[in-house]
């Protein structure tokens, strides 16, 4: 199994017993995965997962500003309908039902995969449009490695990180630390075209990640801990008077897993503990927090051409929020079963999965799925997923006072995702990869907070129909000294309100707000001996800001470029990298009236010591 670790030019072979296989092997046949390259992760390592996804151009990141709240919209779904999975655990807040991706540092994951299409069978509530999988894959046989990195960017942005790791044949352990401060008084254009500085936008954050993995004869033990603290000032929008608001976020994420293999049987026990705190400062401090405890047991049987998996999970969440009508403690039990079959004669693999959850004793919709993967002609693969997906109401939807409704039903619906991939000749210098994909997603009982006579309340009222296509083309050229990769992506997404609340018929059949119909990106990466360079161009289409589609934000196109030089002296490696973001100095907004920076620069220096070559 090949994996791209943080160093783009190193590939290390890992054992068959894959420890944190985000793709779950045969049970996820039919899913279209889009893996971000190690180089992309490395380029954004001084920043957040939000920036990493935004610069990839592969999906729309709804960002309120650099360092500010950022959520993703996958395949026409909203932020509540995309799951964020860390090493197989959902980390979104049970109170909000979403994750702020600006708070996830890109340097804490060495694998970032976009999973297209909802798969509530795998991940439960919330995986409707798709998921973002973040993984920390252990790198065995890597010896001792020490890495220190510093990135300085415009507007007093300083990022420092260090990573100490050790990988032998059977043990892998690493400790990563990072800290970042940014004054973030970036330049943007005001209403009159003058370049002005953003105010009240500084932030600082620091974090620690410990990854540990031990292989014994038949067992694999895994333990990861992620601790983080952030302090952000929240800037005003362009139409507000000013802002003194700030927000502190703390997260403690711990996970442990034990996997035991014997012959064709595999047992796995996993536990995760996720704790987050939020203090919002406006007039006075407003605190909220949640804790989620996840436990899972899996049994897998892998035979020559068929595999079976049965899993049982328990999620227990508690939350503290002064506006809640009660302090909730919620327990959810889930059972999952999967049957995967390889039909080698016709080169077709399929997996049939089903999941049933009970939240506080009440059953949520049964979510079956069918995934098919077929190889045909010489280098073509066709993938198809049909699944039923659902999204539970969040704690805010149910307990917020006033307006929350504890009897809200989950949103649910069916989704289909199909993709055809072609990979060019395996042994030639030039390789081509083409993907054409299409999807169709229907969700009903979508929760909407609607105004009433006295206050707003949450109701199951909307139906949304999302559909679209995606085309992606990659050309890779590799010689002994030069490697070039050209990539182009285009996606078209139509997400419309099939049903609206009464009195809101102007939104009927209109495009959902902040969901661009068109998105595209083109990029070029080159590596020649010790040099690397590249550029990318990301285009985000027009998006509507009002549900009747009368208000909109124009399309914007952003260009980035980078260049770097690497020097190897025995066991030491020095790397210097410079990059420019928004090269064409465009004034743009992702969310209306929330400024985004004009051109910014960044310089990064990295020193790495490796005991093994």
């Amino acid at each position: 199994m090949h994996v791209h670790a943080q160093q783009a030019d190193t590939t290390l072979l890992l054992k068959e017993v894959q420890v944190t296989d985000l793709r779950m092997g045969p049970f996820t046949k039919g899913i279209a995965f889009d893996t971000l390259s190690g180089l992309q992760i490395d380029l954004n390592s001084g920043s957040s997962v939000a920036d990493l996804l935004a610069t990839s151009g592969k999906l729309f990141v709804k960002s309120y500003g650099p360092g500010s709240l950022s959520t993703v919209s996958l395949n026409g779904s909203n932020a509540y309908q995309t799951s964020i999975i860390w090493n197989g655990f959902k980390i979104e807040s049970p109170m909000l039902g979403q994750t702020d991706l600006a708070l996830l540092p890109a340097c804490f994951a060495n694998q970032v995969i976009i999973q297209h299409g909802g798969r509530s069978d795998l991940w439960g509530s919330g995986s409707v449009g798709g998921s973002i999988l973040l993984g920390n894959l252990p790198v065995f046989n890597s010896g001792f490695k020490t890495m220190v990195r510093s990135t300085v960017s415009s507007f007093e942005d300083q990022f420092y990180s260090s990573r100490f790791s050790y990988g032998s044949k059977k043990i892998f352990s690493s400790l990563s630390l990072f800290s970042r401060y940014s004054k973030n008084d970036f330049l943007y254009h005001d209403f009159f075209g003058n370049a002005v500085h953003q105010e009240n936008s500084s932030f600082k954050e620091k974090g620690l990640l410990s990854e540990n993995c031990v292989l014994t004869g038949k067992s694999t033990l895994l333990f990861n801990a992620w601790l983080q603290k952030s302090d952000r000032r929240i800037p005003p929008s362009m139409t507000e008077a000013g802002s003194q608001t700030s927000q502190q976020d703390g997260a403690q994420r711990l996970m442990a897993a034990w996997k035991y293999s014997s012959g064709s049987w595999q047992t796995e026990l996993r536990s995760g503990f996720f704790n987050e705190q939020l203090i919002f400062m406006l007039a006075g401090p407003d605190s909220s927090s949640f804790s989620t405890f996840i436990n899972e047991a899996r049994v897998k049987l892998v035979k020559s051409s068929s595999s079976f998996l049965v899993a049982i999970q328990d999620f227990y969440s508690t939350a503290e929020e002064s506006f809640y009508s009660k302090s909730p403690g919620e327990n959810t039990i889930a059972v999952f079963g999967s049957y995967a079959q390889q039909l080698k004669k016709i080169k077709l693999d399929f997996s049939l999965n089903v999941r049933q959850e009970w939240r506080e004793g009440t059953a949520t919709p049964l979510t079956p799925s069918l995934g098919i993967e077929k190889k045909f002609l010489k280098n073509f693969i066709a993938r198809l997923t049909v699944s039923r997906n659902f999204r539970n109401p969040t704690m805010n939807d149910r307990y917020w006072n006033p307006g929350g409704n504890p009897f809200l039903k989950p949103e649910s619906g069916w989704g289909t995702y199909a993709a055809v991939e072609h990979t060019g000749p395996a042994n030639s210098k030039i390789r081509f990869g083409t993907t054409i994909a299409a999807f169709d997603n229907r969700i009903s009982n979508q929760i909407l907070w609607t105004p009433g006579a006295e206050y707003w309340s949450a109701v199951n009222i909307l139906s949304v129909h999302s559909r679209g296509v995606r085309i992606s083309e990659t050309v890779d050229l590799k010689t002994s000294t030069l490697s070039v990769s050209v990539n182009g992506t285009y996606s078209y997404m139509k997400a419309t309100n099939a049903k609206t609340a009464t009195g809101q018929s102007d939104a009927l059949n209109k495009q959902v707000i902040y969901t661009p119909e068109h998105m595209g990106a083109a990029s070029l990466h080159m590596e020649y001996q010790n040099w690397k360079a590249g550029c990318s161009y990301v285009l985000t289409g027009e998006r509507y800001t009002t549900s009747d589609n009368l208000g909109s934000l124009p399309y914007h196109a952003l260009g980035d470029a980078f260049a770097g030089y690497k020097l190897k002296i025995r066991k030491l490696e020095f790397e210097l990298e410079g990059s420019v973001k928004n090269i064409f100095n465009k004034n743009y907004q992702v969310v209306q009236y929330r400024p985004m920076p004009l051109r910014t620069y960044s310089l990064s220096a990295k020193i790495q010591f490796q005991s093994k070559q």
Partner: protein
Amino acid sequence: MRKMVRLSAAFICVLLLFSSCKKKDDEVITNVIDFSEGVLISNEGPFSAGTGTISFYNRSTNEVMQDIFQLQNGFPAGNIVQSVEVYDGKAFVVVNNAEKIQVVNLQDFMYRQTIGSLSQPRYFMGITPQKGYVTQWGDGSQGQLKVVDLLNGNTIKTIDIGKGSDRMIRSGRFVFACNAGGFDPFTFDPVNDSAIAVIDTYGDSLYRRIQVGYNPGGIVEDMFGKLWVICYGITDYNNPGNDRNGALVRVDPSLLIADYIFQFNTHEPGMRIAINETKYTIFYKVSGAVFSMNATSQSLPSNNIIARDFYGLGFDPVSQLIYGTNATDFNSSGYVVRYEKTGALVDSFPAGIIPGNFYFIPE
């Protein structure tokens, strides 16, 4: 050949990006339209980071123009346009969350000056061509009346007058300002709210407080010179034991006391009051319906005239029609719906996002 096809596929993606995009036109037109006769509608705009707007309805042509502030000036008014007031040939656009008043010429709506240094301003009233009053909520604990200089836009004086200082009306030498409770019309503070503040315009000072019902939010004057105040009552979501019903209270502006109280059997923070062109018939919105009552009535009407809820309510003395606003989902364009005094539906026209208040320019 295959290689060429493959390579061009990569570029096709890039080409598709451009062919599918539409460029947005951005022009500022200086219209020769005259805004000095008609109806101004203030639209709050979306709550988070949007801008409020002003719509203009022309009574003779039955045409409505949207977003006239941005159209004439090229920049948005700001976050949450609470109200618009016309005085001395100028329009005063009170932008609550941008904490300023944009002052424009009424005729062409071109920007003149900003009145700043405000803290959550709500309503404006011109007193003399040199002086105006602004009610503001401040930090929420105490509302203020700001006396502002209309020549240079500066604050002359600030007076604490009660929690959630809101709509005002002038009667003779005094200005009567409602204190509607502000950010939390949940609690009853007999000193700071639930009273009308009486301001003496000669000295710009707080003359007295008149105790009315809980959380007074709207005020009109009838043909007899009496003032009618609509009071929201108390709605405590955390502790319904604290709830108190609202009321319609009549105030005598010469004796400076409340002389008649009509108790409602309900409480809600969004009640509205308006009065007809002869100042004899009072219209008020409560419990999701609009009621009509004469100034000489001894009791509240039992039947409504319009069985429909509105966000804002007003009465145009020129066309003699009731104006209600429908904010739809509070995230897209709302509507103004017009009715006869009998409650018969006349027509409706589109407005901006969350239309809330009106200014009916006399003809």
